[in-house]
Structure formats: C-alpha cells, structure tokens
C-alpha cells in the first residue's frame, strides 16, 4: 500500500451500489486483512452496505470533496440515476466498479424486455406472485399521512458511462481481490493509468488459462456444464462448453476455468473489441466440427440461448444494445 497523500489528508473514498447484487461490496471485503490498509490510507465517507447514511449527507458535501467513488451496479431507475449524477459532482474520480457498472452486467439482460413486460411478469405471472388485483408499483401514492414516492423504473438498463462520464473501469462479477488491490493501489499512490482505462488484463482469459489446448481445436457438440463429466486438463471449449475465455478480457487469473467452469465473460470485451457477443460467437462457432450445412445447423441449435450466453454481461454496451421493444 502506498503512502498517505502528501498533504497529510487521507484519501476520501465513496462506494455506492445501484442495480447490483451486493457482490461487488463483498469483493471489497474479500481483500481480507488488506481492508485495514485501505482504512489506513482512506476515509470511507459513503458505503451503504456497511454504514448508515442519508442522501442529505451526500448532498451536503462540497463539489469535488471526495477523491474517488467506486460505483457498482447498473442504472435502471430514477434514484440510481440521481445518485450517479450527484456523486459525479461530489467526486473527482469516478470508477465503474464491477461488470454491472462497466457494461450493464446481468441486470443488463433486462434489455431483452421493457418496463411493461417486466412488470407483467414480476407482478403478474411468476410462480410466487399472488396479485389478483394486478397491483403494480406507482411512483406517487396518496395516503392519509401524505404523499409517498418511490423511484421511477426505467425501460432500459444503462451502464454507468451511459449516464455520467466515467474515468476508470474495474470489471468483474465481482472484481477479484487482486484486481481490487491493483485498483486501490493505483488510486492510493496516484499512479493512475490514462483516463478511460480498464484496470484489468490486456490479454484474453485464454492467455491466463493453464488448460491444454490443441493446435486445431474442434467442437464435436455443445453441452451445458451439468450435462458432461468435465476433463480436468483439456480446454473447456474443445469439450463443447461455451467458454467465453477467447473473447473476454483477462486479469481474473482464469479462476472459473481452473475449477472446471467455463468462462462467462464477466471481465467484458477485449480491448478494441466492437462487440463482445459477436466476437464470442465468431470464435466459438467457427471451430465446430461440421463440413456441411446440416451438421452446422444441428450444432448451432445446441446453443440454447446464444444471446444470453454471448452477451451475458454486456448487452447494454453492445452494438444493438437491446432487443426490439415488445410494444
């Protein structure tokens, strides 16, 4: 860990969560005893998962008072948008922390639908829903005690950089402890990369993966992980698992393939990639063992959900960005 800031003032740090699962906040704790090093150099001013705070506390800060904000989660309602804009004003450096803030992440798959159809499902027909009157949340409700207000749910899921300017990206679902410490060290010591950088590897996950890969790989058939006994040595893609390693930024240390799980692509597209999903589709399907159209079709059909597989974390930042609206 680097020295404290030269003027003797501790680094002012804020962490916020928007449309996220809390895993990114856990990832910060996952650095174990190094959290004490972070606390030694930084004042944590805002951290909703760990500390009590009120929005008016954030509003009371001076503009630019906070040095760095680690913002995790995608933006999909008016409260999250408000906080993103507010924190942008209060913080000098904004870091999109985790896959959801960086690319939309898993919540980004909601871009396959829109508010209307999501509400129909969630408040209508899921197995656990009992809602005979068809009640859906309203942003304003009058009750005898006054006017109640809840945030407005958007039609789309946004990555953080689609709503405010972002300086750095720390991808991962969640970012690994090593990635977190690289980022924290860079921030604490002031050795920051150029604005716009992604603080992770520059090579693909395959480059870090220790599995044996053949020179001319062939996929005989696509499988889901639970359908086969995985060979512990051989490349997962060659075994027919939809491993995103070839089209995904490394830096994670290839953790998932090391434990027989195919890469899901959480570190996002490779540098200079135009479209993460297209890259993965091209890399994977080009090597299926098919020499005629019938065989190619049979094997292509074994991919149960190509969109969800290839854009699992990146749909909102992809070329087409969302599926066609349903109404």
């Amino acid at each position, binding site marked *: 860990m680097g020295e404290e800031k030269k003027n003797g003032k501790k680094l002012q740090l804020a962490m916020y969560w928007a449309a996220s699962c809390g895993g990114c906040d856990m990832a910060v704790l996952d650095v174990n005893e190094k959290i004490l090093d972070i606390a030694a150099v930084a004042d944590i001013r805002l951290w909703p998962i760990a500390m009590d705070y009120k929005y008016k506390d954030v509003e009371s800060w001076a503009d630019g008072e906070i040095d760095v904000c680690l913002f995790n989660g995608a933006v999909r309602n008016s409260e999250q948008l408000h906080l993103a804009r507010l924190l942008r004003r209060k913080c000098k450096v904004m870091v999109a922390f985790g896959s959801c803030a960086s690319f939309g992440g898993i919540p980004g798959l909601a871009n396959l639908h829109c508010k209307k159809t999501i509400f129909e499902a969630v408040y209508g027909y899921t197995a656990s829903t009992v809602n005979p009157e068809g009640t859906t949340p309203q942003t304003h409700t009058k009750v005898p005690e006054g006017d109640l207000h809840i945030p407005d749910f958007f039609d*789309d899921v946004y990555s953080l950089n689609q709503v405010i300017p972002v300086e750095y990206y720390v991808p991962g679902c969640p970012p690994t402890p090593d990635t977190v410490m690289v980022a924290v060290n860079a921030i604490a010591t002031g050795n920051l990369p150029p604005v716009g950088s992604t603080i992770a590897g520059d090579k693909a996950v395959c480059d870090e993966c220790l599995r044996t890969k053949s020179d001319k790989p062939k996929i005989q058939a696509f499988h889901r992980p639970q359908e086969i006994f995985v060979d512990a040595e051989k490349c997962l893609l060659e075994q027919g698992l939809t491993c995103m390693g070839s089209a995904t930024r490394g830096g994670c240390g290839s953790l998932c393939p090391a434990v027989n799980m195919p890469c899901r692509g959480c570190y996002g597209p490779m540098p200079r990639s135009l*479209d993460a999903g297209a890259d993965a589709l091209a890399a994977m399907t080009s090597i299926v063992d098919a020499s005629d159209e019938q065989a190619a079709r049979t094997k292509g059909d074994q991919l149960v959900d190509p969109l969800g597989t290839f854009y699992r974390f990146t749909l909102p930042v992809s070329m087409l960005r969302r599926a066609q609206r349903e109404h």
Partner: protein
Amino acid sequence: MSTPFEPRIVVLCCNWCTYAGADLAGTSRMKYAPNVRLVRVMCSGRVDPSFVLRAFQDGADGVLVAGCHPGDCHYINGNLKAMRRFPALEKMVAQFGIEPQRLRLEWISAAEGDVFVRVVNEMTAQVRALGALDWRRRAAVGPLPEHAG
C-alpha cells in the same frame, strides 16, 4: 409517406465467387432490384458477425452474406467458417427481435449471375413485404429525465 418503401439490403460478398457472379449479372445485362449495396470482402469467412450487426444497427433492412460454394473456397475453407457461424448468428439475431428473413446466407459462384439475380430479387421482395427494420427506432433508448430522484 408519399414514396413507397424501398428496402436497403447490404450484401457482404466474397471477392472470388459472388462478386464475380454479380459482375457477370451486370455484364450480361441482367436486371436485378437496385436495393442492394454490395460490400466486397476477400472471403465470406472474413464476415465477422459484428459486420452483420453493424449493418442492422446502421439502417440496413436486410443483410445477405454470400460466398463460394462449399469446396470452392479460394482459401480452402473460409466459407465453411461462415457456414458454421451462421445458424447461431441467425438464432441470436432472432432473439434481438429481427425477423429471420432479413438475414440470409447464399453460395453464388462466379458463373451464377442468374442465381445472384434470383436471390437478390427474392430477398428484396421478402424484405419489402416485411417493411423497414429501422433498428434505431425499434430499439430506441429515450432521453434520460433531467431531474431524477
């Protein structure tokens, strides 16, 4: 609208077979629908799926990928790679909500000017019947509210 809808179809065709086939159609004075925009690539295997997505995103109503017949590839097996990618790409494009008739893969040799004419006319008619894709409108992301909270 006063003018009838005319589809815009991007044809990603290989240098060695389909482009020569289109050329043959032209030099033979065959007529085909003027709705196609030919983009010549060296091989249908060079057609990255992102080219197809970009075309749809940028306003194409249909995309035709065309190359040499299997076995005839100038680069031995580039067209087989196009063939292997296509079913998954087709499925994925459908998941985005784009009608399957808007995307097509065809093998057209340098001697098949007539096939080029038939495929282009067929596809133009199909896409015309579907209407405009107009992806930017269909998947438009509206402006964010000025004051949120």
